[in-house]
């Protein structure tokens, strides 16, 4: 099981990842470790979420931590195509104002 994957390096500063499946307290430790490795050295991190079915507050906390780190480097986090249930959670918590949320397949191509 590999919830977090590198899709491709977009340029020197930007990387596209995907998060799939379910992120919760059971796998958060491993996912957080992978996130640290895969984002190391990048300022902009784009995350394709179209196959993310479930994320809990610990997963959201991990994403908040990522934004915090990247903001310090003038970077950003872009979430791509979150499913309705994930979007609802982002809106409920106000996190949609912290991340850029992008829709449509053109950004992934």
């Amino acid at each position, binding site marked *: 099981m590999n919830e977090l994957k590198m899709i491709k390096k977009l340029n020197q500063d930007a990387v596209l990842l995907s998060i799939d499946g*379910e992120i*919760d*307290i*059971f796998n958060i430790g491993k996912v957080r470790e992978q996130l640290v490795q895969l984002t190391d050295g990048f300022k902009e991190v784009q995350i394709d979420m179209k196959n993310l079915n*479930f994320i*809990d*507050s*610990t997963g*959201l*906390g*991990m994403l*908040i*931590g990522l*934004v*915090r780190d990247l*903001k310090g480097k003038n970077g950003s986090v872009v979430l791509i195509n979150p499913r*309705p*249930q994930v979007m*609802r*959670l982002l809106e*409920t*918590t*106000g*996190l949609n*104002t*912290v991340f850029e949320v992008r829709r449509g397949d053109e950004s992934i191509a």
Partner: protein
Amino acid sequence: MNPLHESVYIDSSTDICFNENISLTVPSLPAYVSVVRLAISAMASRCGFDIEAIEDIKVAVAEAVTNAVIHSSKQQSETIKIDSKYDYLKRELRIKIEDQGPGFDMKHIKTPDISRLESGGLGLFIIRSIMDEVKLNTTMGQGTSIVMVKKIGGN
């Protein structure tokens, strides 16, 4: 064929969820959070909640069980008790999640300020936002129980 048997069969084939109830006791371990999440969301689906409400219930249950798991050590609370009841007349699902952990002081719980980019403190806020009723009962040194209600057609 036994007519009585047949009528019983026809009755159950209409498959309406009247007053049904799930009780679970699970070990206080991260691996069991998804077990509870899936059991309760399957029940919610059976009882006629729409997809959005089922997702809300799934999230709220996950947050409450996760809190019970992570905020108490194994010695304090070995198990978590979950009780989920559907009330057909009220059209609501009432879920209680109980642990025997350390409890906490509710005075210290504040609304998270997302703009400060601090992680943590989201779980209870999310639960309160997406469920129709939430009652939290916690006693220091004794444990915590949270009762959450979701109504069909509510919120």
